């Protein structure tokens, strides 16, 4: 789950970090009031879950409160990469001398948190990694000890030659690590971490993603979810415990298991169709999940056919069949349904479907070809 900048900054402040002040506003007069409190010279920043806010015009400098109000009015009407801006963060401007980058994430190969710092901050760090990898210093942290003082200090000396600035940066690096672990994050970064002409080091931007698997034990953070950042289909899928990703095609997919779901999408494409979604109903065999899945898929007007691909292991085919029959009874699908069932209790499932006048095949290739044909896609047999 991604947090907004203002939410990430709250977590950083709670860790004791020096962070540029700011307040959020959801209308232009509110932004003006905040700007007045800060003396007029402010930066107005769109709060959306998207990179590239600056390039999209979602970050603007104002020298008076009236100007801040105008900027807020412009930004609050914007869409950045398809996301409507509903809030702005208004912060006093800073007198920036240097810009650095500090980030923490869990490294898959090292299997532990890794801290990355670079004196080349304020720019896209992936670009620095691609063009000038030596400018990025990495340090794996043993999660059992946490970050040790000498480690934070060593990294800080890569950012600042001045001992006073490096001491402040070391404190912030430690605080960032602690905020990362303490909030169950999968990624936390400050870009840029600035030093001011007056010799202060502080964070003026903040980005945090929380590991979804941590949310059950962190209700306060779970409550930070922005409902506007999630489509109705995504919210429904999450509530039903389904993994769902909306795509642009016409073949609605309902599969058990993430790997098989991806392979099913790939096969739809292979046979000349386009998948409308990724959807994993999971390992359990709850008919309600199947009903929820069908409601989500049929709500997508682009869907021309619904494809079930079930390989029963823990998932019992008869439970999936029960869900399909329940859904058919409860709602009008409006589009044809093609079903593949193999594995646990498949004979029983096939009988149940046959009683309702529905058929199921056993081969994944057969069902995908049929789905693509019904969706009106070009049926290209590449064998």
């Amino acid at each position: 789950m991604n947090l907004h900048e203002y939410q990430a900054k709250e977590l950083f402040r709670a860790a004791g970090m020096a962070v540029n002040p700011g307040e959020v506003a959801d209308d232009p007069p509110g932004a003006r009031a905040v700007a007045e409190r800060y003396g007029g010279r402010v930066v107005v920043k769109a709060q959306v879950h998207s990179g590239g806010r600056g390039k999209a015009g979602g970050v603007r400098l104002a020298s008076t409160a009236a100007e801040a109000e105008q900027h807020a009015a412009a930004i609050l009407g914007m869409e950045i990469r398809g996301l409507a801006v509903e809030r702005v963060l208004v912060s006093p401007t800073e007198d920036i001398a240097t810009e650095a980058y500090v980030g923490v994430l869990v490294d898959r190969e090292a299997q532990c948190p890794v801290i990355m710092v670079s004196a080349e901050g304020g720019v896209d760090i992936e670009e620095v990694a691609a063009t000038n990898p030596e400018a990025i210093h990495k340090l794996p942290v043993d999660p059992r000890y946490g970050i040790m003082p000498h480690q934070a200090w060593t990294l800080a000396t890569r950012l600042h030659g001045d001992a006073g600035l490096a001491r402040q940066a070391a404190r912030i690096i430690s605080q960032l690590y602690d905020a990362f672990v303490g909030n169950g994050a999968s990624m936390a970064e400050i870009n840029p971490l600035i030093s001011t002409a007056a010799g202060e080091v502080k964070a003026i931007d903040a980005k945090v993603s929380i590991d979804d698997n941590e949310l059950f034990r962190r209700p306060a953070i779970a409550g930070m979810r922005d409902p506007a950042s999630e489509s109705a289909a995504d919210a429904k899928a999450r509530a039903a415990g389904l993994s769902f990703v909306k795509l642009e095609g016409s073949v609605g997919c309902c599969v058990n298991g993430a790997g098989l779901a991806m392979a099913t999408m790939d096969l739809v494409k292979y046979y000349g169709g386009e998948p409308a979604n990724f959807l994993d109903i999971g390992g359990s065999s709850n008919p309600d999940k199947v009903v929820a899945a069908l409601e989500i898929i049929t709500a997508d007007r682009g869907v021309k056919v619904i494809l079930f691909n079930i390989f029963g292991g823990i998932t019992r085919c008869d439970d999936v069949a029960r869900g399909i029959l329940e859904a058919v009874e409860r709602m009008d699908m409006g589009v044809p349904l093609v079903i593949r069932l193999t594995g646990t209790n498949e004979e029983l499932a096939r009988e149940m479907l046959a009683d309702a006048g529905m058929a199921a095949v056993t081969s994944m290739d057969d069902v995908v070809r049929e789905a693509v044909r019904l969706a009106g896609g070009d049926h290209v047999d590449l064998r």
Partner: protein
Amino acid sequence: MSIFVDETTRVIVQGITGRDGSFHTRQMMAYGTQVVAGVTPGKGGRSFDGPDGTAVPVFDTVADAVAETGANASVVYVPPAFAAGAIMEAADSEVAFIVCVTEGVPVLDMTRAHALARDRGSRVLGPNCPGIICPGRTNLGIIPGRIVTPGPVGLISRSGTLTYEAVHHLTRDGLGQTACVGIGGDPLVGTSFTDCLAAFAADSDTEAVVMIGEIGGTAEQEAADWVGANLDIPVVGFIAGRTAPPGTRMGHAGAIISGSSGTAAEKTRAFEDNGIKVAKRPVEISALVAAALGR
């Protein structure tokens, strides 16, 4: 032969009295797995009923279970909040092989559990994995026993049901397996493709290997390089997620293309560069294996 475990492996089940744990324990026992004990805190002293009138004792702690039964492997079915703790308990009792089926374990919990397991010399399989089955010998996890059959093919996968799909075709085509290993769909897993490849390489009965990967991370690329440098037997590959959009998690916590890294195209190229034949559809895997074995 088999890898990591065999019919002599003595298995405990952590979370044996839970809904999933009890169901799959009975399945494993019916397959012939030597389940010697269960562990559920607070339920020590009870007895767990297996199939056909069998029973195994339930202990409060892994240490007690190991001391009483000489267990050397564990399968973990406990809920996500307690799964890393269960792995650490097993590692602390020097259980050599620990399978964690649980999905949804916090990643930071796993950084600590993997670190402890490494220190104690325990091998962790998973989390978020279907386990390992050695056809005709033993089954640790949730892979359905009836879709496998003994034979010369080793199979490694990050997925569950996609593994079943591939194994189903192999079995149907008369290509049995030495072992089928699901390494798990999480970003941090205890046993990698490369660990499994090395084990299959050391197993004289394994004549070909199938690697089923997916988008996200670089584990397949590293495994492909290892195959190119070290392995003499043929390898067939499949990568799921060719149509997955970048930056979006596809069900598995680890299945995400970050920037331009971890794409199916990149993994397919790494496979092909190292002499691994790549199937375009799951159904082709079996035919490529048959061809590689000259059948």
